[in-house]
């Protein structure tokens, strides 16, 4: 980003502090299309007054935009899950979601993919267990055109693929290691530290969904999906229909929040 910023320096005239003019794309305020004007105004509104005053050229503007973007989260729009993490999956951080088979991990993964792609972000799913059903993903709201599906065969391949693809600039990287037992042998702990650093370096929100804890100290937060309760419709002689599930989520670890918080999440089955 910094290289781009430097190369764009010449496109932005210096701020005329005496005249009290706001930072402007070259050509003057009137020459700017409404799109840029609106966003600049919005950006200035999001920045603290002192920070906005310091913004004197295009490079700083781009850096400020990048910084502001990195401080955002990608919400999964599953309110209880987002509340546990303080707003969603933080960009530049790795979040681990653990839980046994049937604990609802894959549903949260789908919700995260749906939310990110609906925002126009490109997302990648590293699917170690080869579990994705494109039809139901589409039904869940995932824009499949913006999803890169990688199906490694071992955990080592999965971690290598995750590291490679994170460096490409995807804003949401989801690694689902499938169900227990995982395919392939365990990978060194240092691999997870490297993944965490890679996410930080490229500003990607990384979600690692595993049947048991793997990432250790490398993750920003660990959420455990616990006991689930299935919801059935129909009683007696009338046909039974599986309607959904209620999950228990627990915040096991968070670098900036008090752990131990519990919440429940209801999911419905597509009829």
């Amino acid at each position: 980003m910094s290289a781009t910023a430097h190369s764009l320096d010449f496109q932005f005239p210096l701020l005329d502090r005496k005249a009290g003019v706001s930072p402007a794309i070259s050509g003057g305020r009137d020459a700017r299309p409404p799109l840029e004007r609106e966003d600049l105004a919005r950006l200035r509104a999001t920045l603290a007054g002192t920070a906005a005053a310091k913004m004197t050229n295009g490079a700083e503007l781009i850096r400020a935009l990048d910084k502001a973007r990195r401080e955002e989260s990608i919400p999964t729009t599953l309110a209880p899950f987002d509340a546990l993490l303080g707003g969603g999956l933080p960009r530049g951080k790795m979040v681990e979601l653990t839980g046994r088979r049937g604990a609802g991990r894959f549903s949260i993964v789908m919700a995260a993919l749906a939310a990110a792609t609906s925002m126009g972000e490109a997302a990648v799913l590293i699917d170690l267990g080869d579990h994705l059903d494109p039809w139901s993903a589409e039904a869940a709201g995932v824009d499949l055109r913006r999803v890169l599906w990688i199906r490694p065969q071992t955990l080592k391949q999965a971690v290598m693929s995750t590291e490679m693809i994170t460096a490409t600039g995807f804003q949401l990287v989801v690694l689902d290691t499938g169900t227990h037992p995982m395919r392939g042998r365990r990978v060194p702990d240092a691999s997870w530290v490297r993944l965490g650093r890679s996410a930080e370096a490229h500003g990607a929100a990384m979600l690692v969904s595993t049947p048991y804890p793997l990432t250790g100290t490398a993750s920003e937060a660990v959420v455990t999906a616990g006991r689930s309760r299935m919801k059935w419709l129909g009683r007696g002689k009338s046909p039974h229909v599986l309607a959904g599930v209620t999950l228990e989520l627990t915040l096991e670890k968070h670098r900036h929040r008090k752990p131990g918080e519990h919440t429940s999440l209801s999911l419905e089955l597509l009829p």
Partner: protein
Amino acid sequence: MTTTRIACLYVTMFPLAARLRSEPELLSEAVAIVEGNGSAAHVVAATRRARTKGIRPGLTLAQARSLVPKLIARGRDVECERTAQEALLEVAESFSPRVEDAGDGIVFIDVSGMERHFASEKDLGEAAIRDAADIGLPARFGLAASKLAARVAAELPKSPTIVEPGGEAEFLAPLPLARLTPELDAASTLQRWGITSIGELARLPESELAARLGELGRELHYAARGIDPRPLIPRALPPEFREGMELEWPLVALEPFLFIASAALDRLSKRMEIQGFACKRLELTMTLEPDGYHARAIDLPAPTRDTKTMLTLLRLDLEKTPPGAPVIGFTIVAHPDRPRRAQLSLFGPAALSPEKLATTIARLVSMLGDDRVGMPMAVDTHIPDRYAIGTFAPPPPPDLRRGPRKSRGLLAARIFRPPVAVEVITRPSRENEPGEFQIASIQGEGDIAGDVRTSAGPWQLTAEWWNPSPVDREYWDVELMKGKSYRVYREETPEGWYVDAGYD
């Protein structure tokens, strides 16, 4: 009106330069390029180290060996020379689209009107020499108003040589006649007349020269005055890029072959970069010993110039289907395509760099296989778990950031590929239960086993009745006592029951 300016790129000792481009490690050795076989083999070019020891073009190989016993002799490699010429043409094309291929390390470039792009014509010449050196060819540069004068200027050791417009005759005058045309039939006649320089020839009366030497005399007189009526004939752009070489000895192992192929791919990559292309398809043809060829084609998932990626794909392909005989030569053809471009947005979501994405996808494909990376696609069928993989080419992100659409909060199913065969125990339905029977327990691998708390079904699915083996299944949803829930189906097969998904 712009004055015609023609530049000439000239590679001295072209057969040697082409060989050294393919085998740069020989640069510091005493190497001679020979032509002909057996006792007729004679030296056509030699490296500086060999020349300092007395090796000259025209010596027989035996004579050369008597001077330098450890002389490395290499035959002329047509493939190397052809690819080197191609590479030189591509360098020329990076300066002007009007380029003529004069063969054997000579390329003419029409640089008329390019004075605005370079501070001076000398700068242009230095840039061309630098670019040729980047692809491993030591080129000289000459610039004049005609092809002839440009070639003569390029042949001079001091490079770049610029001949001012209208100064061609003056430039040529002091030079020896051999510079005009090395294979001059009338050289001995002119020598008898006492004519040694081009200027002396130019001073002779044209009609008298034509009367004595015929049409050749007239042409020579024109040339000596710096007049070259031949126009520049631009060549058409090649539809593909080609690199290859003939090997001195047959290769039987993969690693040494990949070592040489890597250098060839590197050269291809640089050539494509000059033209602004990336490789979409690679074709490898290997010449086998004692005879025959082995050809293969590799389609890249996305246009790329990354040598490492192309080499990995080549390695995987060769490991899968080895040629089956020693390799004595190879040609790699790269089919070019425009690399994907994208305008990155300041205010919208971060867009992916198409070049970087293409390279990463190609590397992932080389590691995992081509059916394991791509865009997931739903297939138009009622049968669950059917899918297709497409090329990942995401639409451009929106210009402005937008909020996420609210999730539907749906329970997702993990598909098991292939479905897990299970043993199912059923029991008759009780009075307060629907249907004729209920699933009592399932026994499968791992966690897919246990008593069933609740089951729901059957849901009938019949599809593809037009096929010889249509799909006819009965689906059930079951929740085990342990809390896990699965999608189970029964089919008319020996195994009977399968679990094809788990709710998660």
